[in-house]
């Protein structure tokens, strides 16, 4: 009996760890089985591709949120930031006016610049003002949202040049070897995010900061820089999400991105990242975003829930999905 003591130990623990990381996937699978039972159309390739494609915006934003949250922060402004970025991007495209690649590239650049700047603003106020991120980003959420309303004068900001729209369309609707572009975008963002979080000193510093700020400080981690950078990364992710979003609906409105912050945070938490910081699971986050979209999809595909009660069923499913996850790694 004793000989097993040391030898089996690493495997066993690995296994445990893996269960935690795996549990969002298991919840997703359970959900998919439920979906298939409710409506056979659920499992068609086209439906599944649709669902995953749609989850791209939130998934990309949530990758950024994983950085912020695992460093112990929070960003409530992402939805408004997305609206503002989309608005300014469209205005840039409209003012440039041409329907060519370079116009598009400039517009995209502008989008990323705007969202990165918004992230920077969040980061600086939080680090230098030393105010709870909750309050700061609640404040900037109002600010960014209002700016869109103001830019749109209460109405809509729409891409005017329809040729440009056609040129831009494939970024949402196109595919590469059958894989829709948004899916590729979000896989790439997640892969880069994972690389940064798990393989660079910066990523290590993010986790250290979220685990224990004092220890990080005493270890020479440049706290302020790291914290500000997490918000900039969040901003850039919002920018990328907008790049994929704009070709889909072609306009920005005062209600664009409403409640995306809640969805992004939910995706992160479902994915296994703790709100208190110190843990970050990029792939879990991505699965979390897909879960949210699958739940919404099942709601549309199912036909026995009164429309008034959809929200209730959706809420219940999310709680149940978390219970499934819990029971998967109960052992720990």
């Amino acid at each position, binding site marked *: 009996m004793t000989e097993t003591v040391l030898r089996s130990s690493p495997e066993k623990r690995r296994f445990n760890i893996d269960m935690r990381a795996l549990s969002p996937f298991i919840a997703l699978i359970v959900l998919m089985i439920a979906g298939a039972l409710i*409506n056979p*159309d659920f499992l*068609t390739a*086209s*439906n599944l591709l*649709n669902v995953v494609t*749609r989850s791209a*915006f939130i998934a990309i934003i949530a990758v950024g949120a994983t950085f912020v949250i695992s460093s112990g922060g929070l960003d409530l402004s992402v939805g408004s930031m997305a609206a503002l970025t989309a608005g300014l991007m469209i205005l840039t495209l409209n003012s440039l006016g041409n329907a060519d690649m370079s116009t598009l590239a400039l517009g995209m650049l502008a989008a990323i610049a705007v969202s990165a700047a918004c992230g920077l603003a969040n980061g600086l106020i939080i680090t230098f003002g030393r105010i709870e991120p909750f309050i700061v980003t609640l404040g900037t959420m109002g600010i960014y949202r209002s700016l869109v*309303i103001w830019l*749109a*004068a*209460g*109405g*809509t900001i*729409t891409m005017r040049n329809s040729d440009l729209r056609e040129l831009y369309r494939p970024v949402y609707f196109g595919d590469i070897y059958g894989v829709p572009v948004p899916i590729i975008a979000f896989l790439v963002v997640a892969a880069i995010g994972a690389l940064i979080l798990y393989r660079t000193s910066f990523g290590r510093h993010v986790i250290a900061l979220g685990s224990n700020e004092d220890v990080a400080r005493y270890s020479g981690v440049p706290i302020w820089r790291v914290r500000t950078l997490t918000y900039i990364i969040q901003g850039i992710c919002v920018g990328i999400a907008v790049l994929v*979003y704009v070709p*889909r*609906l*072609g*306009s920005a*409105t*005062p*209600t*664009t991105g*409403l*409640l995306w912050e809640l969805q992004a945070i939910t995706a992160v938490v479902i994915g296994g990242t703790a709100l208190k910081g110190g843990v970050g699971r990029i792939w879990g986050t991505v699965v979390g975003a897909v879960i949210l*979209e699958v739940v*919404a*999809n099942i709601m*549309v*595909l199912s*036909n026995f829930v*009164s*429309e*008034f009660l*959809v*929200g209730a069923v959706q809420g219940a499913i999310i709680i149940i999905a978390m219970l499934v996850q819990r029971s998967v790694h109960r052992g720990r």
Partner: protein
Amino acid sequence: QQKNVTIGVSIPAATHGWTGGAVYHAQETAKELEKMYPGLKVIVKTSPDGASQANALDDLTAQKIDALVVLPFNSDELTNPVREVKKKGTLITVIDRGLKDPTIQDIYVAGDNPGFGRIAGKYFADTLKQGNIVVLRGIPTVLDEERVSNFEKAIEGSGVKVIDKQYANWNRDDAFKVMQDFLSKHQKIDAVWAADDDMALGVLEAIRQAKREDIKFVVGGAGMKEMVKRVMDGDKMIPVNVTYPPALVATAMHVTAANFYTKAPMRGTFVLNAQLITKDNAKDHYFPNSPF
């Protein structure tokens, strides 16, 4: 022999009074139509924002629908997603907030947002002639903007002046607060345009509390049954209302179903003009059993 038809209905979620009414009518009408036309299946889906509505359209098409009845969250955003559905050969019925590209729709059941603002504005110009009014607008959206700008156009040149306006989000509580503050801020207000009956109710409560006598009347809109009743009863404070019935969803669904089950193909535009409800015609607009 029975004909199998599936109609998908996509409307905004029941987030406040009017949309709640719309969902109610959609669900009721669905049941009614399915009973009326054996073989017909109606799937009603609601969405809380433009992007989700685009998703819902995808998902409805996945269920192979023959016709789509859609009340777009927002004209600009939903134009392309509806176009995608159209490409699959689906019959398209658009309600209320039109699409940017009218060629997409086969049937259009129009609500009249510009008219909604214009008629109210005209009433103020005609009745009040002279005076200071405050405006409570809805949620920042295109249709809100259409209503308010047309209202302002309609009072242009008259002696009626908008001295203040704020968003109150089609919400009673917000309207109550904004109105309280308007009353603190302005010593004399001659009348109030609340652009929606939910908001008008909050406004009335605030006025009652402040015991202010200067305000001659409040005009809401959309024909909530309580308000229509007050018009009918000759309430001085609520002299008129402007229609904007959530039941236009029902109309659109009926027309769409008829397209499949009656001989005459239904195409074209059905305008439900915004109408001024006055004491005289109020009983035609009073439906005590509707939830709205």
